[in-house]
Protein backbone atom coordinates (compact mmCIF):
# COMPACT_ATOMS: atom_id res chain seq x y z
CA UNK A 1 0.00 0.00 0.00
CA UNK A 2 1.18 3.45 -0.86
CA UNK A 3 -0.17 6.88 -0.07
CA UNK A 4 -1.59 8.96 -2.85
CA UNK A 5 -2.54 12.56 -2.54
CA UNK A 6 -5.67 13.64 -4.37
CA UNK A 7 -5.78 17.31 -5.29
CA UNK A 8 -9.24 18.53 -6.21
CA UNK A 9 -9.57 21.51 -8.50
CA UNK A 10 -12.58 23.50 -9.64
CA UNK A 11 -12.72 25.98 -12.47
CA UNK A 12 -12.25 29.43 -10.94
CA UNK A 13 -15.76 30.46 -11.92
CA UNK A 14 -17.38 27.50 -10.17
CA UNK A 15 -19.51 28.83 -7.33
CA UNK A 16 -21.41 26.65 -4.91
CA UNK A 17 -22.22 29.46 -2.49
CA UNK A 18 -25.66 29.99 -4.00
CA UNK A 19 -26.71 26.34 -3.95
CA UNK A 20 -30.08 25.62 -2.37
CA UNK A 21 -30.17 23.63 0.89
CA UNK A 22 -31.33 20.61 -1.09
CA UNK A 23 -28.45 20.95 -3.55
CA UNK A 24 -25.94 21.26 -0.71
CA UNK A 25 -27.20 18.07 0.81
CA UNK A 26 -27.16 16.18 -2.48
CA UNK A 27 -23.62 17.34 -3.23
CA UNK A 28 -22.28 16.42 0.22
CA UNK A 29 -23.94 13.02 -0.02
CA UNK A 30 -22.44 12.32 -3.41
CA UNK A 31 -18.97 12.90 -1.98
CA UNK A 32 -19.70 10.83 1.07
CA UNK A 33 -20.97 7.92 -1.00
CA UNK A 34 -17.77 8.10 -2.97
CA UNK A 35 -15.43 8.25 0.05
CA UNK A 36 -17.40 6.21 2.56
CA UNK A 37 -16.06 2.73 1.82
CA UNK A 38 -12.45 3.91 1.85
CA UNK A 39 -13.03 5.67 5.16
CA UNK A 40 -14.44 2.47 6.68
CA UNK A 41 -11.54 0.42 5.35
CA UNK A 42 -9.05 2.82 6.89
CA UNK A 43 -7.84 3.79 3.44
CA UNK A 44 -8.67 7.45 3.68
CA UNK A 45 -7.06 10.22 5.58
CA UNK A 46 -9.92 12.74 5.67
CA UNK A 47 -9.06 15.81 3.73
CA UNK A 48 -9.61 19.51 4.13
CA UNK A 49 -11.43 22.06 2.14
CA UNK A 50 -9.74 25.38 1.39
CA UNK A 51 -11.49 28.73 1.48
CA UNK A 52 -11.36 31.09 -1.45
CA UNK A 53 -9.08 33.52 0.35
CA UNK A 54 -5.48 33.19 -0.76
CA UNK A 55 -2.44 34.68 -2.41
CA UNK A 56 0.42 33.32 -4.45
CA UNK A 57 4.02 34.26 -3.85
CA UNK A 58 6.20 33.55 -6.86
CA UNK A 59 9.60 33.86 -8.43
CA UNK A 60 12.89 35.29 -7.35
CA UNK A 61 11.18 38.66 -7.08
CA UNK A 62 8.81 37.10 -4.56
CA UNK A 63 5.91 38.70 -6.31
CA UNK A 64 2.63 38.41 -4.42
CA UNK A 65 -0.45 37.84 -6.54
CA UNK A 66 -4.09 37.62 -5.61
CA UNK A 67 -4.15 33.91 -6.20
CA UNK A 68 -4.81 31.86 -9.28
CA UNK A 69 -8.41 32.95 -9.53
CA UNK A 70 -8.54 34.17 -13.12
CA UNK A 71 -11.45 33.07 -15.27
CA UNK A 72 -10.90 29.67 -16.88
CA UNK A 73 -8.08 28.75 -14.52
CA UNK A 74 -8.36 25.81 -12.17
CA UNK A 75 -8.19 26.44 -8.46
CA UNK A 76 -7.36 23.91 -5.76
CA UNK A 77 -10.48 23.44 -3.64
CA UNK A 78 -9.50 20.59 -1.37
CA UNK A 79 -7.23 17.62 -0.88
CA UNK A 80 -7.05 14.26 0.82
CA UNK A 81 -4.71 11.28 1.04
CA UNK A 82 -5.77 7.73 0.25
CA UNK A 83 -4.08 4.37 0.51
CA UNK A 84 -3.99 2.30 -2.66
CA UNK A 85 -2.07 -0.66 -4.05
CA UNK A 86 -0.95 1.20 -7.15
CA UNK A 87 -1.25 4.44 -9.06
CA UNK A 88 -3.69 2.68 -11.36
CA UNK A 89 -5.95 1.78 -8.47
CA UNK A 90 -5.81 5.34 -7.16
CA UNK A 91 -6.67 6.70 -10.60
CA UNK A 92 -9.56 4.26 -10.97
CA UNK A 93 -10.88 5.57 -7.68
CA UNK A 94 -10.41 9.19 -8.76
CA UNK A 95 -12.44 8.54 -11.90
CA UNK A 96 -15.58 8.28 -9.74
CA UNK A 97 -15.00 11.60 -7.99
CA UNK A 98 -18.10 13.88 -8.01
CA UNK A 99 -15.96 16.88 -8.86
CA UNK A 100 -15.72 15.62 -12.42
CA UNK A 101 -19.48 16.17 -12.85
CA UNK A 102 -18.81 19.82 -12.07
CA UNK A 103 -16.10 19.99 -14.72
CA UNK A 104 -13.35 20.02 -12.11
CA UNK A 105 -10.31 17.74 -11.94
CA UNK A 106 -8.51 15.38 -9.61
CA UNK A 107 -4.75 15.21 -9.68
CA UNK A 108 -3.44 11.92 -8.30
CA UNK A 109 0.11 11.99 -6.92
CA UNK A 110 2.08 9.32 -5.16
CA UNK A 111 3.47 10.48 -1.83
CA UNK A 112 7.20 9.78 -1.60
CA UNK A 113 8.31 7.26 0.97
CA UNK A 114 11.77 7.33 2.45
Amino acid at each position, binding site marked *: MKDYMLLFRFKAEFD*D*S*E*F*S*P*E*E*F*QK*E*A*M*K*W*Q*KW*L*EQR*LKDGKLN*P*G*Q*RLTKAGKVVSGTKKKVNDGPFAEGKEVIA*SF*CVIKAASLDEAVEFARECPILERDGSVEVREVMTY
Partner: protein
Amino acid sequence: MEKRDNVDKLVDHLFRHEAGKMVSVLTRAFGTENLELAEDVVQDALLQAAQVWALRGVPDNPSAWLYQAAKNRAIDILRRDAKSVRFTSSEEGSIPDREASLQERIEETWDEDLIKDDMLKMMFACCHRGIPEENQITLILKTLCGFSTKEIARAFVTSEDTISKRLYRTKQFFRQNDIRFDVPPAGKLKERTDAVLNSIYLLFNEGYNSTDSEELVREDLMEEAMLLCKMLGENPLTEIPETFALMALMCFHFSRNSTRVSPAGDIVLLQYQDRSKWNSELIALGNEYMAKSAFGDSVSRYHIEAAIAFEHCTAKTYETTKWERILELYEWLCRDYPSPVHALNRAVAVMRVRGPAAALSALDAIPDKTRLEAYYLYHSLLGEIYSRLGKTDEADIEFTTAFGLTNSDSEKKLLSGKITRKEHHSD
Protein backbone atom coordinates in the same frame (compact mmCIF):
# COMPACT_ATOMS: atom_id res chain seq x y z
CA MET B 1 -26.73 -2.22 17.06
CA GLU B 2 -25.53 -2.01 13.52
CA LYS B 3 -23.43 0.98 12.76
CA ARG B 4 -25.29 3.39 10.57
CA ASP B 5 -23.75 4.35 7.30
CA ASN B 6 -22.41 7.83 7.21
CA VAL B 7 -24.87 8.93 4.60
CA ASP B 8 -27.84 7.53 6.50
CA LYS B 9 -27.29 10.09 9.21
CA LEU B 10 -28.69 12.59 6.78
CA VAL B 11 -32.41 12.09 6.60
CA ASP B 12 -34.21 13.29 3.50
CA HIS B 13 -34.29 17.07 3.23
CA LEU B 14 -32.31 17.54 6.44
CA PHE B 15 -30.57 20.63 5.09
CA ARG B 16 -33.81 22.11 3.88
CA HIS B 17 -35.62 21.59 7.15
CA GLU B 18 -32.72 22.69 9.31
CA ALA B 19 -32.50 25.81 7.14
CA GLY B 20 -36.11 26.61 8.08
CA LYS B 21 -35.38 26.13 11.76
CA MET B 22 -32.20 28.19 11.72
CA VAL B 23 -33.75 31.07 9.78
CA SER B 24 -36.54 31.16 12.36
CA VAL B 25 -34.20 31.16 15.36
CA LEU B 26 -31.98 33.83 13.84
CA THR B 27 -34.94 35.98 12.87
CA ARG B 28 -35.97 35.92 16.50
CA ALA B 29 -32.51 37.20 17.40
CA PHE B 30 -32.18 39.74 14.59
CA GLY B 31 -35.81 40.84 14.11
CA THR B 32 -37.94 40.44 10.99
CA GLU B 33 -36.39 43.56 9.47
CA ASN B 34 -33.13 41.61 9.22
CA LEU B 35 -34.57 38.47 7.68
CA GLU B 36 -32.12 38.74 4.82
CA LEU B 37 -29.21 38.67 7.25
CA ALA B 38 -30.62 35.56 8.93
CA GLU B 39 -30.88 33.90 5.53
CA ASP B 40 -27.30 34.81 4.65
CA VAL B 41 -26.00 33.37 7.90
CA VAL B 42 -27.87 30.13 7.30
CA GLN B 43 -26.66 29.93 3.72
CA ASP B 44 -23.07 30.24 4.96
CA ALA B 45 -23.58 27.56 7.58
CA LEU B 46 -25.02 25.16 5.01
CA LEU B 47 -22.23 25.90 2.55
CA GLN B 48 -19.66 25.19 5.21
CA ALA B 49 -21.36 21.96 6.22
CA ALA B 50 -21.61 20.74 2.65
CA GLN B 51 -17.96 21.48 1.97
CA VAL B 52 -16.59 20.01 5.18
CA TRP B 53 -18.89 16.99 5.39
CA ALA B 54 -18.17 16.11 1.79
CA LEU B 55 -14.58 15.31 2.71
CA ARG B 56 -14.65 14.53 6.40
CA GLY B 57 -17.92 12.67 6.76
CA VAL B 58 -21.22 13.57 8.33
CA PRO B 59 -20.86 14.39 12.05
CA ASP B 60 -22.74 12.30 14.61
CA ASN B 61 -25.16 15.09 15.31
CA PRO B 62 -25.57 16.94 12.01
CA SER B 63 -28.15 19.38 13.34
CA ALA B 64 -25.99 20.44 16.29
CA TRP B 65 -23.06 20.93 13.92
CA LEU B 66 -25.15 23.14 11.68
CA TYR B 67 -26.47 25.20 14.60
CA GLN B 68 -22.93 25.75 15.88
CA ALA B 69 -21.78 26.86 12.44
CA ALA B 70 -24.71 29.28 12.22
CA LYS B 71 -24.04 30.66 15.72
CA ASN B 72 -20.37 31.23 14.93
CA ARG B 73 -21.19 32.91 11.68
CA ALA B 74 -23.86 35.13 13.25
CA ILE B 75 -21.53 36.24 16.03
CA ASP B 76 -18.78 36.89 13.48
CA ILE B 77 -21.07 39.18 11.55
CA LEU B 78 -22.17 41.01 14.69
CA ARG B 79 -18.58 41.59 15.76
CA ARG B 80 -17.50 42.74 12.36
CA ASP B 81 -20.28 45.04 11.41
CA ALA B 82 -22.84 45.45 14.15
CA LYS B 83 -23.21 49.05 13.07
CA SER B 84 -24.14 48.20 9.52
CA VAL B 85 -26.97 46.01 10.73
CA ARG B 86 -29.92 48.29 11.06
CA PHE B 87 -32.03 47.31 14.02
CA THR B 88 -35.39 48.97 14.26
CA SER B 89 -37.07 46.86 16.89
CA SER B 90 -37.49 47.93 20.47
CA GLU B 91 -33.86 47.32 21.35
CA GLU B 92 -32.66 49.86 23.91
CA GLY B 93 -29.15 50.88 24.81
CA SER B 94 -25.89 51.50 23.03
CA ILE B 95 -24.63 49.43 20.15
CA PRO B 96 -22.12 47.44 22.28
CA ASP B 97 -24.89 46.57 24.75
CA ARG B 98 -27.17 45.51 22.02
CA GLU B 99 -24.42 43.51 20.44
CA ALA B 100 -23.79 41.72 23.73
CA SER B 101 -27.44 40.93 24.29
CA LEU B 102 -27.78 39.78 20.71
CA GLN B 103 -24.83 37.46 21.18
CA GLU B 104 -26.52 36.03 24.22
CA ARG B 105 -29.71 35.52 22.31
CA ILE B 106 -27.86 33.77 19.53
CA GLU B 107 -26.03 31.50 21.93
CA GLU B 108 -29.07 30.40 23.89
CA THR B 109 -32.27 28.64 22.96
CA TRP B 110 -31.40 26.23 20.22
CA ASP B 111 -33.32 23.41 21.80
CA GLU B 112 -36.07 21.72 19.85
CA ASP B 113 -39.05 23.09 21.79
CA LEU B 114 -37.95 26.68 21.51
CA ILE B 115 -37.11 26.22 17.85
CA LYS B 116 -40.67 25.04 17.30
CA ASP B 117 -41.97 28.21 18.93
CA ASP B 118 -39.73 30.27 16.70
CA MET B 119 -41.02 28.47 13.62
CA LEU B 120 -44.57 29.18 14.71
CA LYS B 121 -43.74 32.85 15.15
CA MET B 122 -42.15 32.80 11.72
CA MET B 123 -45.38 31.35 10.32
CA PHE B 124 -47.36 34.19 11.89
CA ALA B 125 -44.94 36.75 10.47
CA CYS B 126 -45.13 35.20 6.97
CA CYS B 127 -48.93 35.16 7.10
CA HIS B 128 -49.36 38.75 8.21
CA ARG B 129 -52.54 40.34 6.93
CA GLY B 130 -50.61 43.05 5.11
CA ILE B 131 -48.90 40.53 2.82
CA PRO B 132 -50.70 39.27 -0.31
CA GLU B 133 -51.45 35.54 -0.16
CA GLU B 134 -49.15 34.52 -3.00
CA ASN B 135 -46.32 36.41 -1.32
CA GLN B 136 -47.10 34.68 1.96
CA ILE B 137 -46.68 31.21 0.53
CA THR B 138 -43.60 32.29 -1.39
CA LEU B 139 -42.00 33.50 1.83
CA ILE B 140 -43.05 30.39 3.72
CA LEU B 141 -41.29 28.25 1.14
CA LYS B 142 -38.20 30.42 1.20
CA THR B 143 -37.79 30.82 4.95
CA LEU B 144 -39.51 27.90 6.68
CA CYS B 145 -39.13 25.24 4.03
CA GLY B 146 -35.63 26.09 2.78
CA PHE B 147 -36.48 26.34 -0.91
CA SER B 148 -34.30 28.46 -3.18
CA THR B 149 -35.77 31.13 -5.42
CA LYS B 150 -35.18 28.85 -8.37
CA GLU B 151 -36.93 25.92 -6.71
CA ILE B 152 -39.93 28.05 -5.78
CA ALA B 153 -40.15 29.33 -9.34
CA ARG B 154 -40.13 25.77 -10.62
CA ALA B 155 -42.77 24.70 -8.12
CA PHE B 156 -45.06 27.59 -8.98
CA VAL B 157 -44.30 27.31 -12.70
CA THR B 158 -43.23 30.93 -12.90
CA SER B 159 -40.04 32.93 -13.42
CA GLU B 160 -37.29 33.39 -10.86
CA ASP B 161 -37.69 37.09 -11.37
CA THR B 162 -41.31 36.97 -10.23
CA ILE B 163 -40.34 35.07 -7.11
CA SER B 164 -37.44 37.43 -6.33
CA LYS B 165 -39.79 40.40 -6.59
CA ARG B 166 -42.32 38.80 -4.25
CA LEU B 167 -39.61 38.09 -1.69
CA TYR B 168 -38.16 41.55 -2.03
CA ARG B 169 -41.53 43.22 -1.45
CA THR B 170 -42.29 41.08 1.58
CA LYS B 171 -38.95 41.83 3.19
CA GLN B 172 -39.53 45.50 2.48
CA PHE B 173 -42.92 45.17 4.17
CA PHE B 174 -41.23 43.72 7.26
CA ARG B 175 -38.73 46.57 7.36
CA GLN B 176 -41.25 49.33 6.82
CA ASN B 177 -43.88 48.06 9.22
CA ASP B 178 -41.76 46.87 12.10
CA ILE B 179 -43.46 43.50 12.15
CA ARG B 180 -42.96 41.81 15.49
CA PHE B 181 -41.63 38.30 15.67
CA ASP B 182 -44.13 37.01 18.15
CA VAL B 183 -47.23 35.02 18.88
CA PRO B 184 -50.33 37.18 18.34
CA PRO B 185 -52.19 38.32 21.47
CA ALA B 186 -54.92 35.98 22.73
CA GLY B 187 -57.71 38.05 21.20
CA LYS B 188 -56.13 37.85 17.74
CA LEU B 189 -54.83 34.28 17.94
CA LYS B 190 -57.80 32.55 16.31
CA GLU B 191 -57.96 34.99 13.42
CA ARG B 192 -54.21 34.82 12.82
CA THR B 193 -54.17 31.04 13.06
CA ASP B 194 -56.93 30.95 10.44
CA ALA B 195 -54.72 33.05 8.17
CA VAL B 196 -51.85 30.62 8.66
CA LEU B 197 -54.09 27.63 7.91
CA ASN B 198 -55.35 29.38 4.81
CA SER B 199 -51.78 29.82 3.57
CA ILE B 200 -50.91 26.22 4.34
CA TYR B 201 -53.91 25.08 2.33
CA LEU B 202 -52.93 27.37 -0.54
CA LEU B 203 -49.44 25.93 -0.48
CA PHE B 204 -50.83 22.42 -0.51
CA ASN B 205 -53.11 23.26 -3.41
CA GLU B 206 -50.21 24.72 -5.38
CA GLY B 207 -48.77 21.24 -5.28
CA TYR B 208 -52.04 19.40 -5.63
CA ASN B 209 -53.42 21.37 -8.56
CA SER B 210 -50.29 22.12 -10.49
CA THR B 211 -50.23 19.55 -13.23
CA ASP B 212 -47.33 21.18 -15.01
CA SER B 213 -44.49 20.93 -12.58
CA GLU B 214 -42.75 17.64 -12.09
CA GLU B 215 -44.13 14.98 -9.81
CA LEU B 216 -41.40 15.43 -7.23
CA VAL B 217 -41.82 19.17 -6.89
CA ARG B 218 -45.56 18.77 -6.49
CA GLU B 219 -45.15 16.18 -3.77
CA ASP B 220 -42.59 18.37 -2.04
CA LEU B 221 -45.04 21.23 -1.76
CA MET B 222 -47.76 18.99 -0.40
CA GLU B 223 -45.40 17.41 2.11
CA GLU B 224 -44.12 20.78 3.28
CA ALA B 225 -47.68 22.03 3.78
CA MET B 226 -48.50 18.93 5.80
CA LEU B 227 -45.37 19.27 7.94
CA LEU B 228 -46.23 22.86 8.76
CA CYS B 229 -49.80 21.94 9.61
CA LYS B 230 -48.58 19.07 11.77
CA MET B 231 -46.39 21.54 13.64
CA LEU B 232 -49.44 23.71 14.30
CA GLY B 233 -51.32 20.65 15.53
CA GLU B 234 -48.55 19.93 18.03
CA ASN B 235 -48.47 23.41 19.50
CA PRO B 236 -50.95 24.20 22.32
CA LEU B 237 -51.49 27.66 20.87
CA THR B 238 -52.64 26.43 17.48
CA GLU B 239 -54.10 22.96 18.08
CA ILE B 240 -57.62 24.00 17.19
CA PRO B 241 -60.23 21.82 15.43
CA GLU B 242 -59.58 23.61 12.12
CA THR B 243 -55.92 22.60 12.22
CA PHE B 244 -56.79 18.91 12.51
CA ALA B 245 -59.57 19.18 9.92
CA LEU B 246 -57.13 20.69 7.42
CA MET B 247 -54.61 17.97 8.24
CA ALA B 248 -57.28 15.31 7.62
CA LEU B 249 -58.22 16.93 4.33
CA MET B 250 -54.63 16.99 3.15
CA CYS B 251 -54.08 13.36 4.16
CA PHE B 252 -57.12 12.30 2.11
CA HIS B 253 -56.04 14.31 -0.92
CA PHE B 254 -52.45 13.15 -0.72
CA SER B 255 -53.52 9.51 -0.44
CA ARG B 256 -54.72 9.59 -4.04
CA ASN B 257 -51.74 11.45 -5.36
CA SER B 258 -49.83 8.71 -7.12
CA THR B 259 -52.84 7.74 -9.22
CA ARG B 260 -53.80 11.21 -10.40
CA VAL B 261 -51.18 11.42 -13.12
CA SER B 262 -50.21 8.59 -15.45
CA PRO B 263 -46.57 7.59 -15.89
CA ALA B 264 -46.68 9.46 -19.20
CA GLY B 265 -47.68 12.62 -17.32
CA ASP B 266 -51.35 12.63 -18.35
CA ILE B 267 -54.14 13.46 -15.95
CA VAL B 268 -56.17 10.49 -14.80
CA LEU B 269 -59.74 11.43 -13.87
CA LEU B 270 -61.19 10.21 -10.60
CA GLN B 271 -63.36 7.56 -12.22
CA TYR B 272 -60.35 5.97 -13.92
CA GLN B 273 -57.93 6.05 -10.99
CA ASP B 274 -56.64 2.75 -9.65
CA ARG B 275 -58.17 2.77 -6.19
CA SER B 276 -56.03 -0.15 -5.05
CA LYS B 277 -53.04 2.18 -5.26
CA TRP B 278 -54.48 4.80 -2.95
CA ASN B 279 -52.42 5.11 0.21
CA SER B 280 -54.46 3.36 2.89
CA GLU B 281 -52.11 4.45 5.67
CA LEU B 282 -52.69 8.08 4.84
CA ILE B 283 -56.44 7.52 4.64
CA ALA B 284 -56.30 5.96 8.11
CA LEU B 285 -54.23 8.89 9.36
CA GLY B 286 -56.78 11.25 7.83
CA ASN B 287 -59.47 9.45 9.80
CA GLU B 288 -57.53 9.94 13.01
CA TYR B 289 -57.22 13.65 12.34
CA MET B 290 -60.93 13.81 11.47
CA ALA B 291 -61.70 12.35 14.90
CA LYS B 292 -59.34 14.86 16.54
CA SER B 293 -61.00 17.73 14.69
CA ALA B 294 -64.42 16.86 16.05
CA PHE B 295 -64.38 18.92 19.22
CA GLY B 296 -65.71 22.36 19.95
CA ASP B 297 -68.66 23.76 18.07
CA SER B 298 -67.00 25.14 14.98
CA VAL B 299 -67.44 23.48 11.62
CA SER B 300 -64.89 25.01 9.28
CA ARG B 301 -64.67 24.68 5.52
CA TYR B 302 -61.85 22.22 6.18
CA HIS B 303 -64.21 19.99 8.17
CA ILE B 304 -66.69 19.87 5.33
CA GLU B 305 -64.08 19.50 2.61
CA ALA B 306 -62.42 16.72 4.61
CA ALA B 307 -65.77 14.96 4.91
CA ILE B 308 -66.18 15.17 1.12
CA ALA B 309 -62.67 13.88 0.52
CA PHE B 310 -63.36 11.10 3.01
CA GLU B 311 -66.36 9.95 0.96
CA HIS B 312 -64.24 9.79 -2.18
CA CYS B 313 -61.36 8.00 -0.47
CA THR B 314 -63.53 5.33 1.10
CA ALA B 315 -65.80 4.58 -1.87
CA LYS B 316 -65.02 1.17 -3.35
CA THR B 317 -65.75 2.36 -6.90
CA TYR B 318 -66.61 5.62 -8.61
CA GLU B 319 -70.15 4.39 -9.26
CA THR B 320 -70.81 3.38 -5.66
CA THR B 321 -69.60 6.71 -4.29
CA LYS B 322 -72.20 8.21 -1.96
CA TRP B 323 -73.00 11.09 -4.28
CA GLU B 324 -76.09 12.10 -2.32
CA ARG B 325 -73.97 12.51 0.78
CA ILE B 326 -71.36 14.46 -1.19
CA LEU B 327 -74.04 16.73 -2.64
CA GLU B 328 -75.38 17.33 0.85
CA LEU B 329 -71.91 18.29 2.04
CA TYR B 330 -71.38 20.62 -0.92
CA GLU B 331 -74.68 22.28 -0.14
CA TRP B 332 -73.52 22.83 3.40
CA LEU B 333 -70.20 24.17 2.14
CA CYS B 334 -71.91 26.54 -0.31
CA ARG B 335 -74.26 27.81 2.35
CA ASP B 336 -71.67 28.45 5.07
CA TYR B 337 -68.67 29.25 2.89
CA PRO B 338 -70.07 30.54 -0.38
CA SER B 339 -67.61 30.76 -3.23
CA PRO B 340 -67.98 30.32 -6.97
CA VAL B 341 -65.51 27.43 -6.90
CA HIS B 342 -67.49 25.58 -4.24
CA ALA B 343 -70.64 26.16 -6.29
CA LEU B 344 -68.87 24.74 -9.34
CA ASN B 345 -67.92 21.62 -7.41
CA ARG B 346 -71.46 21.34 -6.15
CA ALA B 347 -72.66 21.32 -9.75
CA VAL B 348 -70.47 18.27 -10.41
CA ALA B 349 -72.22 16.45 -7.57
CA VAL B 350 -75.60 17.64 -8.88
CA MET B 351 -74.78 16.08 -12.23
CA ARG B 352 -74.04 12.72 -10.58
CA VAL B 353 -77.21 12.75 -8.47
CA ARG B 354 -79.78 14.55 -10.61
CA GLY B 355 -78.37 14.46 -14.11
CA PRO B 356 -76.92 16.96 -16.59
CA ALA B 357 -80.03 19.16 -16.96
CA ALA B 358 -80.13 19.80 -13.20
CA ALA B 359 -76.37 20.47 -13.23
CA LEU B 360 -76.86 23.05 -15.99
CA SER B 361 -79.48 24.88 -13.92
CA ALA B 362 -77.18 24.65 -10.91
CA LEU B 363 -74.40 26.34 -12.88
CA ASP B 364 -76.86 28.93 -14.18
CA ALA B 365 -77.94 29.74 -10.67
CA ILE B 366 -74.44 30.58 -9.42
CA PRO B 367 -74.83 34.24 -8.49
CA ASP B 368 -71.36 35.48 -9.33
CA LYS B 369 -70.61 33.07 -12.11
CA THR B 370 -68.92 35.74 -14.22
CA ARG B 371 -65.97 35.17 -11.91
CA LEU B 372 -65.85 31.58 -13.13
CA GLU B 373 -65.78 32.47 -16.79
CA ALA B 374 -62.01 32.78 -16.90
CA TYR B 375 -61.67 29.42 -15.16
CA TYR B 376 -61.10 26.48 -17.47
CA LEU B 377 -62.81 23.99 -15.17
CA TYR B 378 -66.07 25.90 -15.48
CA HIS B 379 -66.04 25.53 -19.25
CA SER B 380 -64.85 21.99 -19.08
CA LEU B 381 -67.79 21.11 -16.82
CA LEU B 382 -70.20 22.96 -19.13
CA GLY B 383 -68.75 20.96 -22.01
CA GLU B 384 -69.30 17.75 -20.07
CA ILE B 385 -72.91 18.71 -19.35
CA TYR B 386 -73.68 19.61 -22.99
CA SER B 387 -72.01 16.46 -24.12
CA ARG B 388 -74.23 14.38 -21.86
CA LEU B 389 -77.26 16.30 -23.07
CA GLY B 390 -76.29 15.35 -26.60
CA LYS B 391 -75.48 18.92 -27.58
CA THR B 392 -72.18 18.13 -29.25
CA ASP B 393 -71.64 21.50 -30.88
CA GLU B 394 -72.13 23.43 -27.65
CA ALA B 395 -69.89 20.94 -25.87
CA ASP B 396 -67.13 21.49 -28.43
CA ILE B 397 -67.32 25.25 -27.98
CA GLU B 398 -66.95 24.92 -24.20
CA PHE B 399 -64.11 22.41 -24.40
CA THR B 400 -62.33 24.69 -26.86
CA THR B 401 -62.74 27.67 -24.53
CA ALA B 402 -61.43 25.59 -21.63
CA PHE B 403 -58.47 24.53 -23.80
CA GLY B 404 -57.58 28.16 -24.37
CA LEU B 405 -57.77 28.99 -20.67
CA THR B 406 -55.37 26.43 -19.25
CA ASN B 407 -51.60 26.54 -19.56
CA SER B 408 -51.14 22.98 -18.47
CA ASP B 409 -50.10 20.58 -21.21
CA SER B 410 -51.76 17.60 -19.61
CA GLU B 411 -55.03 19.50 -19.13
CA LYS B 412 -54.87 20.56 -22.77
CA LYS B 413 -54.33 16.98 -23.84
CA LEU B 414 -57.29 15.81 -21.82
CA LEU B 415 -59.50 18.54 -23.26
CA SER B 416 -58.44 18.08 -26.86
CA GLY B 417 -59.37 14.41 -26.53
CA LYS B 418 -62.87 15.54 -25.68
CA ILE B 419 -63.13 18.07 -28.49
CA THR B 420 -62.29 15.63 -31.26
CA ARG B 421 -64.53 12.98 -29.81
CA LYS B 422 -67.77 13.69 -31.59
CA GLU B 423 -69.85 10.76 -30.41
CA HIS B 424 -72.23 11.14 -27.50
CA HIS B 425 -70.99 10.65 -24.02
CA SER B 426 -71.65 7.19 -22.70
CA ASP B 427 -70.90 6.43 -19.11
